């Protein structure tokens, strides 16, 4: 053991000496590894960024909500199997809440009905087109994450009475009332005047495609009055206990089947969605990108590894006589193997460190130049980068090192 340690120390010393002696060569070899590591870690950073973007965007709506809808939230080809499902009625929420009151032990907390529609909102000459309009009850803030920037959410009385009151999303308020407080003023939706009671705080957008701030919330009763034809968007949002999510889902399914009167042999005629359904929809794209990205950047690293192998072979060849001398003086195979392996790994580790610093700096620059792009550079990426650079060194240095260790001392000494 002691001997191994000594050989290891000696190898490091020799490696350092060799790297110093062939500065240019070592630098170029390391550069090959650096290019590979930068490519791989930046790809990892980009993929991590996509994940974080999705999570951040979804966190806005709360991850403890189940959505009961008619249509599943995934791409379906056989739409005819879902078309004839009865609509989701908003009074199911009441029934679910009644059940929850009677059975406080189940992991379901609160059900809130919601219906959605795209409309235009006007104020005098100002207009905002295609605003996501949500009709819901006064319970909505209890399950939501958003806060009020100004004013308040509509209350129970306004909700039940179907008063014409509205809570504006940040962007809508900004567009209709530039530099002015909208609370107490009126806006027009369809042909109805609505009094603004509050403005929600800024919540950001979903991957830059859909802004949570381009929305208005009105009482469900007023929503029903205005959009007479029941929309397909009706849904029940159910807040659950996150720690017992599966149980909650089962329980909710049971309650819904009871409410809908689905007989035991029939399949569900409703869908229980979670945010994961959205994530799952994005997963194939993300995984495809990640696979293609890592394969292509992995090739760059592979090329770097070939460079190391090549230069280690050269190094073995140049130092054949030295190896012969060491062997003649009693160095074991192991010592020679270790010597060259340590040299290869050392170059890789240097390359890895430089590569990680470079890609960290690049990621930071991107984050600084374009703050809207979610860029991450987590610890695991650093560890991963270091691990693959060491692995690269071992794998690519192994064959030449074995070659060196197998040299016959007599032949090696005679080598010209």
């Amino acid at each position: 053991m002691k001997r191994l340690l000594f050989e290891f120390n000696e190898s490091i010393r020799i490696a350092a000496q060799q790297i110093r002696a062939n500065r240019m060569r070592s630098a170029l070899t390391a550069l090959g590894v650096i290019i590979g590591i930068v490519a791989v870690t930046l790809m990892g950073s980009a993929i991590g960024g996509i994940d974080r973007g999705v999570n951040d965007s979804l966190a806005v709506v709360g991850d403890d909500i189940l959505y009961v809808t008619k249509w599943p939230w995934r791409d379906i080809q056989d739409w005819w199997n879902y078309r004839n499902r009865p609509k989701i009625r908003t009074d199911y929420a009441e029934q679910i809440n009644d059940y929850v009151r009677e059975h406080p032990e189940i992991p379901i907390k609160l059900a809130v009905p919601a219906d959605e529609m795209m409309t235009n909102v006007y104020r005098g000459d100002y207009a905002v087109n295609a605003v996501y309009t949500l009709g819901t009850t006064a319970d909505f803030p209890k399950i939501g994450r958003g806060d009020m920037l100004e004013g308040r959410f509509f209350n129970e009385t306004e909700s039940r009475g179907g008063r014409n009151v509205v809570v504006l999303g940040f962007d809508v308020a900004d567009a209709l009332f530039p530099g002015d407080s909208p609370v107490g003023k009126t806006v027009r939706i369809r042909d109805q005047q609505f009094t603004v009671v509050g403005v929600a705080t800024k919540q950001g957008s979903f991957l830059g495609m859909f802004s949570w701030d381009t929305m208005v919330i009105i009482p469900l009763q007023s929503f029903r009055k205005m959009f007479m034809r029941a929309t397909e968007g009706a849904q029940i949002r159910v807040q659950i206990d996150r720690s017992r999510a599966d149980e909650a889902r089962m329980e909710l399914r049971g309650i819904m089947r009871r409410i809908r009167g689905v007989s035991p042999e029939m399949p569900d005629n409703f869908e229980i969605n979670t945010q994961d359904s959205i994530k799952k929809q994005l997963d194939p794209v993300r995984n495809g990108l990640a696979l293609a990205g890592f394969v292509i950047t992995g090739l760059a690293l592979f090329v770097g590894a070939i460079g190391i192998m090549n230069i280690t072979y050269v190094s073995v060849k140049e130092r054949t006589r030295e190896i012969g001398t060491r062997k003649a003086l009693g160095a074991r195979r192991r010592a020679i193997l270790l010597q060259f392996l340590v040299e290869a790994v050392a170059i890789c580790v240097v390359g890895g460190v430089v590569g990680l610093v470079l890609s960290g700096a690049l990621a930071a620059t991107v984050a600084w130049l374009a703050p809207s792009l979610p860029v991450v550079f987590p610890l695991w990426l650093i560890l991963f980068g270091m691990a693959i650079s060491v692995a690269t060194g071992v794998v690519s240095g192994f064959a030449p090192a074995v070659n060196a260790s197998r040299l016959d001392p007599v032949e090696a000494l005679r080598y010209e």
Partner: protein
Amino acid sequence: MSDHKRHLGLPFSEILRMAWVSVCAHKLRSALTMLGIAIGVFSVIGAMTVISALQASIEEQLNVLGSTSFQISKYPAIHSHGPINPYANRRNIVIGQAQRVKELLADTGATISLNVNRWGRQVFYEDKKTNPNNNLVGTDEAFITGRSYNIGLGRNLTPDDVEYGRAVCVIGADTRGRLIPVGDPIGAIVRVDGQGYRVVGILERKGELFGQSQDNLVIIPITRFLQVYGRENRSIGINVQARTQAEMGGAMDRAYGAMRVVRGLQPEDANDFEIFSNDTLVNAFAKIANVVGAGAFVISLIALLAAGVGIMNIMLVSVTERTKEIGIRKSLGAQRRAILRQFLIEAMVIAQCGGLIGIAMGVGGGNLVAKAMNAGAVFPVGWTIVGFVFCSAIGVGFGFYPAWKAARLDPIEALRFE
């Protein structure tokens, strides 16, 4: 030429031979360097082959229309069915307008066919029925050529069918397979929305577009369609088939003019209709494909860059090892340019050999991946050339410094080198 020879000392073929000899002298080393380049080129060519193959297979599927035809409609061919539909507020193209356009374009000699659709129909035959995903098309005899369908069995609609509004239909291959899988379908009465239509023809299978069948349709005379469903609240599509491909552009220009006249648009108004042909669809798709391709190209180039560093490194080793040889050549009168050239060519030989291997691997591997994704095989000639040029450039670019270093060696120092 003789002038050249005097300057460079050796003929080109001799330099090439020398390069090859020195490549062969260090087989392992050259092979590994070549492998590096080969993988770099493989990365570029492989990625581009996959993208080209996917692009080709999608473009092939995009033959929605016939090769000489274009379509005038209210909605563009590709638009998202999101909750926000900016096209919904456009006025419908009503039958009167469509007929006016037909008259205005009569002198172009193009065949003009009107068509109107009802999506999501269920088709019944005896005790069988299809899923509610059939497209009921009211049109005339020119529809099938305008949409590049072929009659597989029976006959097409005739002008008489359209004239008299006969209750006859031509059905798609999928619809037939669902309703009348065996036996003679001609003469069978199928029902759509409670109306019976006698089958007079079956279309040949056209295949899927983006996973959607194009063979679940029922074609009936447009006169019959309007009789059954009324003229209100529907927008008519106008399909124009020019006589030749060459006349298509002219006909399209005329169609824009005619549509603007018929719609009563002022000069400053934007078009409130769309005209598209297969080319429009392919171009719209190619835009996306080009962006993806450019991204993939840049990322895959990184590996080639790493391979270039490998070449530089090994050439530097080679120069160091052959310092004595260089010294001898120089002292015998070889000029700097000759030495430079020798090492550059050596780098080029390695890079190009590796490049050729990489192209072979890339085209092979790329097509394997493309095949796994159900796309046909392609040989991307353009990208192959680009790949070869790039790896040659990498050979020259990264080989230059070592070659320059060799050329600058002082012959006396070089000869004394141990």
